[in-house]
């Protein structure tokens, strides 16, 4: 991972970590506040509901007590005693009920038969077991009971908070049973007071409901004995929603912060690492041989000192390298001159001796002068020819032209060279293993010279009988041309020297063939190597850059 990336990530981490440490605790505090607010609301609503239900019971009890003491019931008793028309009593309870704000009122006789009903006048003359049971219960506290009332679709049973009181008029006993319905109106009232959803349910199911509370909810249940429940529900959705909003906000903030931190980190890291990267790039160039690389970045502090030291170092390195190269060049030319002088000096001795022999013969009037002259002249001519050849090859070595590159299929090239130029002596067999479509960019003539030199060397190595194997293949991004012979091979100590100019192991060699071949390969950004063949003999390997990636082809054997 690059230094700039690391620095950017470090900045991002520095930005996120404080948020991650601070925000959750803030969330927890806010959640606690909201939860406390909800609990406060629940407590308030609970108190209001409880108080309202208690007051409802108390007002019901007061209303029934007042009704029991009213003159209206005495009048009713007189009517009953006087056997008045029952139809006059149909609406009696309804008027009493309405005037006292009750919603349930039944006047029952001692047998539980309805004398008059306010909430259901048509009950007149019928027993009302539910309310009679309330009348017969011992307590005076209001209790919940299910009473039948008129509904839009017939009668329905509704929970009611009722209480009873008995009155005796002589032998006549009248039960006054009344109260209030636990209906939608009450639910709406409670809902408005508490801002909560109110559900009133009996064993027969939900009787009334009002308000809404989006789930999840916080519930409280008030039980009205024996079997009616008033359920209060307050929504916790705002808390959940606030929590989600906070989480989303936090996520967005972290995201934006992270993004900004990364961008800012990149900018700062770029500012910081630019000299370092320039140093890295300069180092890379120096490694590639460009010793003149200088870092132009302006930096201060330790990095600036490093840049300046680096520039000083590269300057020193360049100067030292130039001196070394100059020294090597001088040394190389000294060596070449030494060897050239040696090569030239070798023919000079026979020439001198031949000329001295001729001079001596001519002064002595030697009868063999004519023969000696001819032998000496031939020797001189032979040595002069040798000198010319030395000079020509040296000239060729020194003036090797710049290669003119073209695309060449190496396998086809080898087959063409073999068919046109190679003519092995008897007993020498030339074989090939050529991978197709191994292309290189080379100077065809120069590569031909290399290949012919290698084949000639191989022929000379195998002498009269043997095998020469030419192999073409592609390995990774390199094209490889190998010439393998079954000769004695090259001694390990000579394997590097044979590429030096004027080094030869042969009687008639000039020692420039392989040097020229290696130089041609180097001019093609390639290499010429020698190695021992696995089965004995030598293998010369030309390694050139592969022009295109060639597929692994199947080798052909000749």
């Amino acid at each position: 991972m690059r230094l700039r990336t690391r620095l950017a990530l470090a900045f991002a981490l520095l930005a996120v970590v404080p948020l991650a440490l601070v925000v959750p605790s803030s969330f927890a505090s806010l959640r606690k506040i909201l939860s406390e607010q909800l609990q406060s609301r629940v407590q308030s609503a609970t108190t209001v509901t409880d108080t309202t239900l208690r007051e409802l019971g108390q007002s019901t009890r007061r209303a029934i007590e007042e009704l029991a003491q009213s003159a209206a019931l005495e009048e009713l008793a007189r009517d009953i005693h006087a056997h008045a028309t029952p139809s006059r009593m149909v609406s009696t309870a309804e008027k009493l009920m309405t005037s006292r704000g009750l919603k349930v009122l039944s006047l029952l006789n001692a047998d539980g038969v309805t004398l008059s009903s306010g909430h259901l006048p048509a009950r007149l003359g019928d027993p009302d077991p539910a309310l009679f049971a309330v009348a017969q219960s011992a307590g005076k506290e209001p209790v919940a009971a299910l009473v039948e009332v008129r509904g839009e679709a017939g009668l329905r049973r509704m929970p009611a908070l009722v209480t009873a009181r008995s009155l005796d008029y002589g032998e006549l006993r009248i039960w006054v049973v009344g109260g209030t319905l636990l209906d939608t109106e009450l639910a709406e009232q409670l809902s408005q007071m508490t801002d909560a959803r109110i559900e009133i349910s009996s064993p027969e199911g939900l009787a009334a409901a009002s308000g809404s509370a989006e789930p999840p909810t916080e519930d409280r249940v008030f039980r009205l004995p024996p079997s009616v429940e008033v359920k209060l529900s307050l929504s916790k959705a705002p808390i959940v929603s606030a929590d989600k909003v906070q989480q989303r906000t936090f996520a967005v903030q972290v995201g934006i912060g992270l993004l900004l931190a990364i961008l800012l980190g990149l900018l700062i890291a770029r500012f910081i690492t630019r000299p370092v990267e320039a140093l890295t790039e300069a180092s890379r160039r120096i490694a590639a041989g460009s010793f003149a690389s200088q870092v132009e970045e302006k930096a201060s502090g330790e990095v600036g000192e490093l840049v300046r030291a680096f520039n000083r170092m590269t300057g020193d390195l360049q100067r030292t390298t130039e001196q070394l190269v100059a020294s090597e060049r001088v040394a190389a030319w000294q060596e070449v001159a030494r060897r050239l002088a040696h090569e030239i000096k070798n023919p000079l001795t026979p020439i001198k001796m031949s000329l001295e022999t001729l001079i001596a013969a001519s002064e002595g009037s030697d009868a063999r002068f004519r023969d000696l002259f001819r032998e000496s002249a031939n020797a001189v001519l032979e040595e002069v020819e040798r000198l010319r050849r030395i000079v020509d090859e040296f000239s060729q070595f020194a003036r090797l032209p710049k290669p003119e590159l073209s695309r060449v299929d190496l396998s086809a090239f080898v087959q063409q060279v073999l068919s046109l130029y190679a003519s092995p002596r008897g007993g020498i067999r030339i074989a090939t293993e050529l991978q197709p479509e191994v292309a290189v960019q080379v100077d065809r003539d120069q590569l031909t010279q290399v290949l012919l030199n290698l084949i000639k060397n191989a022929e000379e190595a195998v002498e009269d009988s043997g095998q020469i194997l030419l192999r073409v293949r592609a390995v990774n991004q390199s094209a490889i041309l190998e010439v393998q012979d079954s000769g004695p091979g090259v001694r390990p100590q000579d394997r590097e020297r044979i590429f030096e100019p004027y080094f030869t192991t042969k009687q008639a060699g000039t020692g420039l063939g392989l040097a020229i071949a290696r130089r041609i390969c180097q001019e093609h950004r390639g290499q010429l190597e020698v190695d021992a063949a696995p089965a004995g003999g030598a293998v010369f390997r030309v390694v050139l850059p592969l022009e295109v990636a060639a597929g692994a082809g199947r080798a052909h054997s000749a």
Partner: protein
Amino acid sequence: MRVAVASERPETDPLLADAPVDAALVRMTTQPVCSLEAPHRLRPTLTADISVHGDAQLVIAILPGRKFANGAAITARDVASSWSRAAQPAASSPYRALLFPIRGEGRRLSAGTSSRSIELPLSFPWPDLATSLCHPALGIVPPSGPAAAGLGPFTPARAPGTYEANLSFPIGRPFADRLAVAFTDERGIARLWVLKQAQIALGISDERYSISAAALYATYLVFNPAKTGAEFRQAFESVIDHGDLSRSFVRSPSTPMHALLPPSLMPQDAPPRPGPPAIAAPRQLALAFDQSLPDQRSVAERIQVKLHELKYKVSLRPLPRSKLRTLWASGGYDLMLHAVLLPPTPAAALSLAIEASGRHELLSAELPPLGAIANDAERDAAARERAKALAGSLPSIPLYAQALGAVASEEIKGLHADAQGLPALDDAFIATEAPP
């Protein structure tokens, strides 16, 4: 003469004013061509006589000088149009059954050769047609409408609640010069009575009635068998006590009905009540009733409560009387309380009961045999027999019959009820003490 009436908004259209209080008030201002002194004895108002010619045609000749209260002469066209109102299907009136024997069922009545006579060709002999024409619902209304001054002993004055004597009333002017009518409820009547601010009270429930009126205002529960199921009549009879309804939920004077016609028209005994039928599944029914009648509301609620015991879910549907009649005429009801003011003759009452039950098509089969009986007593007996026979097949259950409860103070004399059960306020007078 100060009159207190237990009605806060009385109906003025004779076709809709069939409740006893409404009919009594309408009778003051709008009367038919005759009135009934007894079930088969009529007293013509506009004509010298109402007679049937050869059992095929009834001719009514309006006497000259007969005028509405506003002085306009009464013509045959006024009479024909008044009857046609009842006969038209758009009126949705059960009282069209009274005109059924007239050819075309009375829908195409026309004046005769002169503007003073009207000819009523009959589809079949119907001796009770003359008395049927005395029904209050067939009151003669002026061309300007039923609310205007009509044919009655009194006429509305400009002051609210005041009725002036109609000096051109054909029978003769009423004794009272003016009626001061207070429209209130029973509690208000009681207060006025105690304060002696009312001399006559109409529509009250009291055991000390001053007049004896026939209970001819019959209330039926009509039902749609397709919606109620075949077992409905048995279910209803098993839980509803007609006597209980009449006694506890309906204002007196009322009497339970156990037959198609009320007890004043045919004797009847309470039959044994059947047991409840097996109800396959709960039924949801709507019970329509007249929202202006507290008695019907009480009865409807009682029916709701008692049928609930048999798993019928009955919803109550209070309607104005006109909409109730429209609903009845359309047949689009489940249950409906239908009250009609029956005429005092059994055959005509039977025709109206059949019509009220929604079986208009039965009239053509039931009435001609009865009309063929010329003797009144025999025809009445035959009508009672047919009423018994039809009771179980008609989609209606007779519930109770009511009369008008009327009380008069001691100084009021001459107050009586006609054969229709309505008080004749024009015959009432204030008895003054003889000078010492």
